[in-house]
């Protein structure tokens, strides 16, 4: 499992120049950047399946029908049925909703906590900075998945505790990044100028420093999204995520485990494919977001 670090390198092309022409050209932008276009389309498709799936595919993801168990994919069941006859496609859609929701919540809450910790540490300095950063170091001392596992074991397995565990492992990445960013901006001449003009510390923080770290926070958040989905599936796979009937993608793969080698591959293959598509699309988007938004990146001079 990779730690949620933003990507450092750039892709070809010169996307910023096009992006600056306005949001109205977003479609032209997506069409020209093929990888980004595919990634956005794939993620949008998963969002649609998760949100609107129950409307156009009304099969019950929990509805047991032993008579039609272990059916291969067909027009009646596009992804087949599992060992107790539940429709895998309906479960896949529900899994998309769960994964994307948990991923979003983890990203938003983690970015808030990590962002506040980083900004406070960078702005105040002194013992508070030291205490906060040593706490972050302690979290970083664990391999991320292992800490998420420990937290989930400690708090009792379930979707919420798994999300909490994943969120906790992402906080230091935001905090350290934002702290260094705040320190960098604090030393720039325009902050000195604002100070000379008589602006209070709080005003300088709120009006001059925080707006400048938002893009950094967004880049990191985008990078964390895919990590959160992958880790949730991993926790589900080892039995720490969603409770049994809940169609979370990781637990669905565990369900399919014993049927893989007896020929019923569809139970486990499709949820894994869902994770693969969601995470890859998210990391491609995060990569591009970095190229476009990173203030220190190669487009800083534009």
């Amino acid at each position, binding site marked *: 499992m990779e730690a949620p670090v933003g990507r450092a390198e750039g892709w070809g092309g010169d996307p910023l120049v096009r992006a600056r022409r306005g949001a109205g050209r977003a479609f032209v932008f997506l069409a020209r950047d093929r990888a980004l276009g595919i990634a956005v389309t794939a993620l949008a498709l998963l969002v649609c399946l998760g949100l609107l799936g129950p409307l156009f595919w009304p099969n019950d993801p929990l509805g047991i029908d032993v008579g039609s168990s272990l059916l291969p994919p067909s027009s009646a069941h596009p992804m087949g049925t599992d060992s107790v006859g539940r429709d895998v496609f309906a479960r896949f859609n529900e899994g998309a909703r769960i994964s994307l929701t948990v991923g979003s919540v983890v990203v938003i809450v983690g970015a808030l906590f990590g962002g506040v910790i980083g900004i406070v540490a960078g702005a105040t300095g002194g013992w508070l900075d030291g205490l906060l950063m040593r706490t972050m170091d302690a979290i970083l001392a664990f391999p991320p998945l292992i800490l998420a596992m420990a937290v989930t074991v400690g708090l009792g397995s379930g979707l919420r505790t798994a999300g909490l565990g994943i969120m906790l492992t992402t906080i230091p990445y935001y905090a350290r990044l934002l702290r260094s960013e705040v320190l960098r901006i604090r030393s720039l001449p325009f902050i000195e100028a604002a100070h000379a003009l008589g602006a209070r510390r709080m005003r300088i923080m709120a009006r001059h420093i925080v707006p400048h770290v938002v893009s950094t926070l967004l880049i990191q958040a985008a990078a964390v999204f895919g990590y959160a989905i992958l880790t949730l599936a991993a926790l589900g796979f080892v*039995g720490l995520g969603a409770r049994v009937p809940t169609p979370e993608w990781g637990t669905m793969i565990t369900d399919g485990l014993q049927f893989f080698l007896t020929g019923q591959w569809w139970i486990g293959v499709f949820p894994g494919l869902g994770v693969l598509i969601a995470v890859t699309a998210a990391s491609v988007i995060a990569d591009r977001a970095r190229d476009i938004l990173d203030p220190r990146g190669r487009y800083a001079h534009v």
Partner: protein
Amino acid sequence: MIRAAAGKLSGALMAIFGASVFAFIFMRVFPGNPARLIVGPLASNEAIVQQEKTMGLDKPLWVQYWRYIKGIFTGDWGFAYSAGETVKHEIVARLPASAELGLYAFLFAFVLAVILALAATYRHRPWVDGTIRGVSFLGLGTPPFWFGLIVLLLFSQVWGIFPGPDGRLGPNTTPPPTYTHFYTIDAVAAGQWGTAWDALRHLMLPAITLGLAPFAFLVRLLRANLLDVSRENFIVVVRSKGLGRWPAFSHHALPNAFLPTLTASGLLLAQLISGSVLVEKVFNWPGIGALIVDSILRQDFAVVQTFVLLSAVAYVAVNFAVDVLYGVIDPRVRIPVAR
């Protein structure tokens, strides 16, 4: 130099201390009651109180923390009641299997990553570069346990090239005499070529599965480093002195591109540790990762607890070693220290 190393060491020790506090909080303070888990749901209250006494759970928290830390360092890691053995026995017995798998996974990831990173940057061929970048994105996005199932399905079930998930050796092969506990090496040392071949065949699929994420990560890193280095002035100089493209790459660009990769070894170790938890179960590999998953399912948290802290210690230790080593290998890092 020494002062810098001492500073880094104290930082590393601080991190491990903080990590142990975290592990202690999440394992001892929050969960319901480990004593009840051990004596079972039907036990009387007296039995639970008795069990709490023997485990020291009635003592104040700081006493419990002290016992916990002392236990970690003296090798007293508790009792894995689901296996009926001490945690230490379980972990020590299973370590070689995980280490051998990790070693082969790393070799696979490293060799393939170097080859593909070279292919991506050696000449300007956008489609090769694009394909390799796409593969690395997919590699990082693939859930390793799922990938393991797919390769098992294809290579073992459908095509029958590799053996199925039956651990380190086939059912008819006896383990080689133990020197290193690595079956491939031991079998070769004892001249049992058939056993070595069997062990290697059983290693292949799990190693590729475990190595997938490190491979994808290394390709990205090496490719970016190679691109950076090949734009450096000294590469232009050696090329203009008449050195061919290949010697310039292999002798000048590649060694320099490896340096930043060294800093990522901690991350690679973390990937291998987490990966083993996810992959070993799929292949019935008798290593620590499979032990952890089984312990979670049986709510035997003494094992998980030890594993969590040990992996944190290993992770911090590797990062610390890399920090110090980096100064030794790359003189540029030493300069600010000398001042």
